[in-house]
């Protein structure tokens, strides 16, 4: 049997394991429900205001898709990844799996790809739901050919916190602890990023600007919106403010360059930051698994 086949077997196992957990299913349902609620409220309370002009209505699918990504998908990423490796140790099933003809790298690859493909499925679901809801509430939508690209960008952007939680899952081998630490980093990172952006705005000190971009949440939050801004022309409305990195217009004014140039720069930086963090976290997890004993049942 080839290595690829062995990895595929573990991927399918990981799907079944994750979906058997009621908490994951509940979160998926909650994500869709909250997405529906937000768009419902938006359509009701912004009608006739500057936040919902006629020219922005055909682009509301962007809001529908992105708000799902920001709110729940990162949390689902943390929950899925946080238990992927650690639960096998906690339940004592790692012994059974790793005493089968599979290398540790294949095992970790299967677990990672299984969890991440499940997350991608959830993201596909929220993307489709976002587009459907936007069409339902705001009428026919424009530029829908970019939906798959947006979806891929969202998948890529969630790599950071998925890999972070996955790393803690393997390093700590305690699922609750792994999830809590990853969640704490998500929240702290979000707050620090905002703080650094504010410090840059008030002091014009570039150190804060670069630091704010080095924070994990910046890459994961803005990569999809930066990509969509680069690819599409969106009316300059409140919707743009929603998806925009707030530092871009400030920076454009300061440097006297167009926002398009800065969007391109920021997009490259976001792509690199996501990749660098994800690779570091995965390498730590691989090192831990390869170099240490398979721990016995802990729960």
């Amino acid at each position, binding site marked *: *049997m080839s290595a690829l*086949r*062995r990895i595929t*077997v573990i991927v399918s*196992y990981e799907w*079944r*394991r994750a979906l*058997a957990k009621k908490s994951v299913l509940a979160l998926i349902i909650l994500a869709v429900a909250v997405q529906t609620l937000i768009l419902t409220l938006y359509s009701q309370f912004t009608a006739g205001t500057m936040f919902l002009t006629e020219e922005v209505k055909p682009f509301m699918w962007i809001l529908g898709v992105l708000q799902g990504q920001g709110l729940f998908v990162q949390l689902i990423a943390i929950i899925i990844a946080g238990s992927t490796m650690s639960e096998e140790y906690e*339940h*004592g*099933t790692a*012994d*059974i*799996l*790793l*005493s*089968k*003809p*599979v*290398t*540790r790298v294949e095992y970790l690859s299967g677990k990672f790809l299984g969890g991440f493909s499940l997350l991608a499925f959830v993201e596909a679901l929220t993307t489709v739901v976002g587009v459907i809801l936007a069409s339902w509430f705001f009428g026919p939508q424009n530029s829908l050919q970019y939906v798959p690209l947006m979806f891929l960008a969202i998948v890529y952007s969630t790599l950071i916190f998925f890999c972070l939680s996955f790393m803690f899952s393997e390093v700590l081998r305690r699922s609750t602890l792994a999830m809590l630490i990853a969640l704490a980093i998500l929240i702290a990172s979000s707050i620090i990023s905002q703080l650094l952006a504010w410090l840059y705005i008030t002091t014009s000190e570039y150190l804060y600007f670069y630091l704010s971009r080095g924070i994990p949440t910046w890459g994961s939050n803005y990569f999809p919106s930066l990509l969509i801004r680069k690819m599409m022309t969106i009316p300059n409305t409140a919707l743009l403010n929603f998806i925009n990195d707030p530092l871009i217009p400030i920076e454009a004014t300061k440097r006297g360059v167009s926002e398009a140039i800065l969007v391109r720069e920021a997009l490259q930086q976001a792509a690199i930051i996501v990749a660098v963090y994800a690779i570091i976290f995965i390498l730590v997890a691989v090192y831990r698994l390869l*170099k*240490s*004993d*398979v721990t*016995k*049942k802990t729960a």
Partner: protein
Amino acid sequence: MNALSQSVITVSKLTKFYGDFKALDSVSFAVEKGWVYGYLGPNGAGKTTTIRTMLGLLKPDQGEVQITGINPSKDPVQALQSLGYAPELPTLQTFFTGEQLLDFMGEMFGLAAQARREKIKQLLDLVGLKEWGDKKIGKYSKGMVQRLSVALALINDPVVLIMDEPTIGMDPEATAHFRNLFTNLSKQGKTVFISSHLLDEVQRICTHVGMINKGKMVFTGPIEQVLETFTQQWVIEAELEKVTETIVSNLKKLDYVEDVKVEGNKLRIELKEKKDLRGEISSEIFKRKGVLLSLNLHKITLEDAYLRALKGGK
């Protein structure tokens, strides 16, 4: 080809530390094809550590393990392909049914779908879980999980079967059934490695025994040899209506008698040879007008040998 290279399992100078604690201290033994090898030791002796190192789950600090000539730490795919393992008190994936878990494990070994279906049916029947195959494992009793664990270990038709306390939690009927199963598997040429603290079970089914204590191998060899090695003497216990000085002194004069101890109307006759000499002893007693009520030969059991081995005595 030397004896070592014919071995299906070879453990050489295996040393394993948990922090400062030396769990295994240069453990070596070899298990050949068709043996049923009983691995004995008290709690914390290092039995499970040895097994988990053999499977590549633990990384040895020194030494090496080979399963069918392949080191599982270096090439787990090849080494574990022909190995079946049933852990001690297994926790199985409760979200699967018994059939689903067997199917998944069959897939891990690369079995084709049709072969898996046939094997699953056969194994569930073999372990007495035919009626339970489509039920979630979460609903199984401990004994049923244990049975399923044995079935899982057999899914790939292994050459080597490693069982860590395989009959714990099973009822006596199932225990007897599995004893027969292991014996039959060895008759089919499979090598069975059983870690157990049930000495009676080991004595009944094992051809060879390894004993470990405080991380060190105390003995490894054929089961007859362990009994022989750790036997000081065989003893005949005789109960008489009345013990007389004549009987005792004449018994003591016999060439094959080491000593005779009197405890009320019972005689404890320690023999020089490891032979059943009850006939000779009873003749001597009758000759001296003794009335024999009972006469028992007390051979050394594996338990005696085991306890003696753990004390370091021979």
